[in-house]
């Protein structure tokens, strides 16, 4: 069959269209059994009418054709012929002939579109005639049809007078009508009408379509079309399921929702950050363990085979002591957790796994991946932040109308939801009050300057204190007669600073009277600065240690040189030595790794203990001693603790910095960290729910966590520096770790390029490393950054302009209630289509957009159609 489309609707096709029109009256019910009762009835009617009318109809049509259609017919000889052919074909199907009466009736007169018109009119007449015999309903239907036909006829006649051939107008209109009905069927579910009416309208529309659907016969394409639609549906469903699955995979959603509902989004933002960190560390863990630790365990030499994998004789007695193990000495030190354990064999195992190369790559890749993830997340968050401007427009209205989740069917969840909605309203109220506040601006400014002055003073003071203590400790390093305090002075001072300063800052910040959200940021920034001093002091101390070890190493290498010289001189073979007895150098990488691991572990202990004592014990005391105390503990002095967002966020950020710095020297550190984050998620969730009370002024976290991310990025950069410095400049230890025996750690890459890659690649790399190439490349990048930056600025400006333009029309109420405009639109349409096509004949040049006037059967002219039916019915 032929697919007909309104756009390519021309004279020739019109014939065919008419033929099909006939066909489908009958074919409807068979082809589409799911076309409901309406279809069945329509078909039956057609048949009935067909039987009676088949013969006489043809005559009638022919007669009609003569006077009216002649003019048009002359032009369309070829099409007429085609119509005849069709006729012949159907004649062969003798048995079906009766059934297809209606079709044939049409076919008979179907040489031209005008004929078709006639036949329709004829049918209408017949409908009237046979009305008495048929069921009342049918009669009504046909009457409707008739009415419709005559309407069409009028407009058609008009067009005959005016234009030479808008001959295809009728077919076109019918097509339009059917399209419209179909559209109605497709969209009826979107109409805000009462169900009863929808069912009724649906029935009408279906009946109509079933009668005339042939006009739209998709032919063979229909199956394919249906298939496509089905596949599309399936695909959408699959996508939705996949999305559901993906969201189901995100852990701790419920936990965080719980926290959020009771403590507000600011506290929840910490947990979201924690979860994000966990995800990132999981990936780092996968890399480190999958590419370094597990290959070494599976394929590397076993423990005790070579000196670096054996505990030295002197330490063996105490190697299993708990206290030693807790310091990560003894067996821990000579385990896969630390740098020193790895061998410098170029390839290990059957797979020829290049462990040293993989070690270096993972070390660098850790930073690369973290940088990428942090920056990408920041960019994404910034995107979200871009929408913030819009959001502020409807904060309260949206909260009011969209915050209740209709899916909730569990009473506990519902209670949580009530709590969270109340909290979020309170958050917004705080924001709003903050906006409305107007006080003495000068006083506030003065106070803020004052507060910042105080804080700068205390920061400077603490910085100097640390500097002083570090100097002193370097002096102490040369002495041996140290008291306990002198030994641990640095640590004590640092923890004291960490303990005293944050509350001090908080007190000073009261002066500033910022919105809590902004105050949190200031607080975070200040404590960050304080901790940074802490961190870098630690690093400098570490580097001192490393330097002494590197010097020590030189002594030992000299010793070794003498030893081998001696052996060679005497010509004696060295006696076989147990790997435990071999003299070895100080492995400074392992020492650094141990320092970081120790620091991380002690950090975990301290933070967990703080929660246990500072929050849990306090809560227990307040709760139970309250029964027998002279003042109200819960409302009065100790009361319950609040969740310390800034402290926890910074703890997390600094901890991550430790991991980044230490992971290169202690691959096991990443595993420890994953465990820490995992346990801390559960532990802190429990602690916050069980022991803390919401903040006095619950406030909303800024939508994007970019401030946390910014801190993280800064720490990442700061921890990148020392690691890259050691990789690039310090010589690796000569007898431990995967890079032993090389002058620099990155030599392992050179080695791979030389030995494993084809020679031309090696030369390529050497060219690429040429400063003559690198400097232009850097320049190019700088230029690209500049260019992209200016482009983004331009876009931003354009964006602002557009926003302004969008808001302008919005400010006046242009939108009317749906429905008030509908009448006007319909009228316009009427006019547009009732007038003849000014182009005269020729293919329809305008798109099928504006609908025909075509009052539907049963649809009085007064009743509007479509969405604009007036106010939603109640």
């Amino acid at each position, binding site marked *: 069959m032929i697919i007909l489309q309104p756009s390519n609707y021309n004279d020739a096709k019109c014939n065919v269209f008419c033929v099909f029109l006939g066909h489908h009256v009958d074919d409807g019910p068979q082809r589409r059994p799911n076309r409901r009762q309406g279809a069945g009835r329509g078909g039956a009617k057609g048949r009935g009418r067909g039987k009676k009318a088949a013969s006489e109809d043809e005559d009638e049509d022919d007669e009609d054709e003569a006077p009216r259609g002649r003019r048009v017919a002359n032009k369309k000889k070829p099409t007429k012929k085609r119509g005849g052919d069709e006729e012949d074909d159907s004649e062969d199907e003798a048995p079906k002939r009766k059934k297809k009466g209606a079709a044939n009736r049409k076919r008979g007169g179907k040489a031209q579109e005008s004929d078709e018109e006639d036949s329709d009119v004829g049918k209408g007449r017949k409908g009237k005639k046979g009305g008495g015999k048929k069921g009342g309903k049918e009669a009504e239907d046909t009457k409707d049809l008739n009415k419709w036909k005559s309407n069409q006829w009028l407009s058609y006649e008009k067009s005959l007078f005016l234009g030479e051939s808008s001959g295809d107008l009728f077919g076109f209109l019918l097509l339009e009508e059917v399209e419209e009905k179909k559209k109605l069927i497709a969209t009826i579910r979107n109409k805000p009408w009462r169900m009863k009416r929808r069912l009724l309208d649906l029935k009408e529309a279906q009946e109509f379509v079933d009668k005339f659907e042939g006009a739209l016969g998709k032919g063979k394409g229909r199956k394919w079309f249906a298939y496509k639609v089905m596949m599309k549906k399936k695909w959408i469903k699959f996508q939705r399921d996949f999305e559901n699955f993906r969201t189901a995979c995100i852990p701790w959603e419920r936990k965080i929702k719980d926290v959020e509902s009771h403590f507000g989004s600011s506290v929840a933002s910490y947990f979201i950050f924690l979860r994000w960190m966990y995800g990132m560390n999981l990936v780092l863990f996968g890399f480190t363990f999958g590419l370094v630790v597990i290959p070494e365990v599976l394929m590397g030499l076993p423990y005790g085979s070579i000196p670096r994998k054996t505990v030295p004789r002197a330490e063996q007695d105490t190697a299993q002591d708990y206290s030693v193990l807790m310091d990560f000495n003894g067996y821990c030190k000579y385990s896969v957790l630390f740098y020193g354990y790895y061998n410098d064999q170029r390839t290990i195992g059957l797979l020829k796994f290049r462990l040293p190369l993989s070690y270096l790559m993972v070390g660098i890749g850790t930073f690369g991946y973290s940088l990428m993830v942090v920056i990408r997340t920041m960019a994404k968050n910034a995107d979200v932040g871009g929408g913030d401007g819009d959001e502020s427009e409807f904060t309260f209205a949206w909260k009011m109308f969209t915050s209740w989740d209709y899916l909730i069917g569990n009473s506990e969840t519902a209670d949580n939801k*009530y709590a969270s909605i109340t909290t979020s309203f309170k958050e917004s109220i705080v924001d709003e009050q903050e906006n409305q506040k107007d006080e003495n601006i000068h006083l506030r400014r003065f106070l803020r300057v004052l507060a910042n002055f105080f804080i700068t003073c205390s920061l400077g003071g603490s910085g100097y204190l640390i500097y002083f203590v570090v100097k002193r400790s370097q002096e102490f390093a040369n002495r041996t007669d140290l008291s306990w305090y002198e030994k641990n002075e640095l640590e004590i001072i640092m923890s004291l600073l960490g303990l005293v300063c944050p509350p001090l800052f908080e007190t000073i910040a009261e002066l500033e009277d910022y919105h809590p959200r902004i105050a949190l940021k200031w607080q975070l920034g200040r404590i960050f600065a304080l901790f940074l001093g802490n961190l870098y002091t630690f690093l400098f101390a570490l580097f001192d240690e490393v330097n002494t070890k590197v010097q020590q190493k030189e002594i030992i290498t000299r010793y070794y040189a003498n030893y081998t010289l001696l052996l060679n001189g005497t010509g004696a073979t060295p006696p076989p030595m147990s790997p435990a007895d071999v003299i070895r150098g100080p492995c400074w990488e392992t020492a650094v790794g141990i320092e970081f691991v120790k620091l991380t572990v002690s950090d975990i202990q301290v933070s967990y203990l703080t929660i246990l004592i500072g929050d849990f014990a306090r809560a227990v005391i307040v709760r139970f001693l309250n029964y027998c105390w002279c003042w109200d503990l819960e409302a009065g002095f100790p009361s319950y603790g609040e969740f310390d967002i800034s402290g926890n966020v910074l703890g997390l950020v600094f901890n991550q910095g430790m991991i980044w710095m230490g992971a290169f020297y202690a691959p096991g550190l990443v595993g420890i960290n994953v465990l820490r984050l995992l346990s801390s998620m559960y532990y802190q969730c429990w602690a916050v729910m069980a022991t803390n009370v919401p903040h006095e002024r619950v406030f909303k976290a800024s939508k994007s966590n970019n401030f946390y991310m910014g801190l993280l990025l800064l720490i990442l950069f700061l921890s990148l520096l020392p690691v890259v410095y050691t990789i690039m400049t310090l010589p690796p230890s000569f007898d431990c770790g995967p890079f032993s025996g090389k002058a620099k750690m990155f030599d392992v890459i050179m080695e791979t390029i030389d030995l494993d890659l084809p020679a031309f690649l090696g030369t390529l790399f050497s060219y690429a490393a040429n400063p003559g190439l690198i400097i232009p490349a850097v320049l190019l990048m700088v230029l690209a950054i500049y260019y992209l930056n200016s482009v983004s600025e331009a876009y931003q400006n354009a964006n602002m302009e557009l926003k302004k333009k969008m808001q302008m029309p919005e400010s006046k109420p242009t939108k009317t*209630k749906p429905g008030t405009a509908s009448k006007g639109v319909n009228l316009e349409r009427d006019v547009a289509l009732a007038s003849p096509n000014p182009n005269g004949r020729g293919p329809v040049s305008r798109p099928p957009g504006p609908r025909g006037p075509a009052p539907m059967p049963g649809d009085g002219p007064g009743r509007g159609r479509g969405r604009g039916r007036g106010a939603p019915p*109640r």
Partner: protein
Amino acid sequence: MRGRGRPWDKLLHYSLCNVTGQQDCTFFTRKEILRLHARYHELAPHLVPMDYTNDPDCKLPLALIVNMPELKENPFCSRIVESFSEDGMGNLSFNEFVDMFSVLSEMAPRELKAIYAFKIYDYNVDNFLCKEDLEKTLNKLTKEELTPEEVQLVCEKAIEEADLDGDHKLSFADFENMITRAPDFLSTFHIRI
């Protein structure tokens, strides 16, 4: 019980007569409509016939429908049922029942949902969301845990934000304009059945 014999036979009968039409008028598949009918029947087995051949005029009262687990916890449950009932009192025929869950289903478009959301929040059925409506909504949402001043503030702000024509109440146009831009309206105005 009016439906004698095996109920599933009757259900099948029901489906043959009515489901197809409803399928086209709602966002449900045939199976879902049958399930909905089962649920509807379950609510009041003695009232709802299994046999829907001749379109019996049977309605369930508000109190029964509100007890469905899907609606029970919803603070607006009675409003939902009322706004879908033809008489405004919350008596739902099966057609209306299906209609309700169809509008609240995932597939329903934003515009349709907005129309019904407007009706739901319009407590006094005057085609405007005025301050009293908002206060009621807010108190239901927060279980009256906000102080009266806070409620006042929130309602005023909400109207101020969304009111385009400055009549201090929200018409449907205001409401639609506001709600169509809400990011989570679609995901929250949704009941899975």
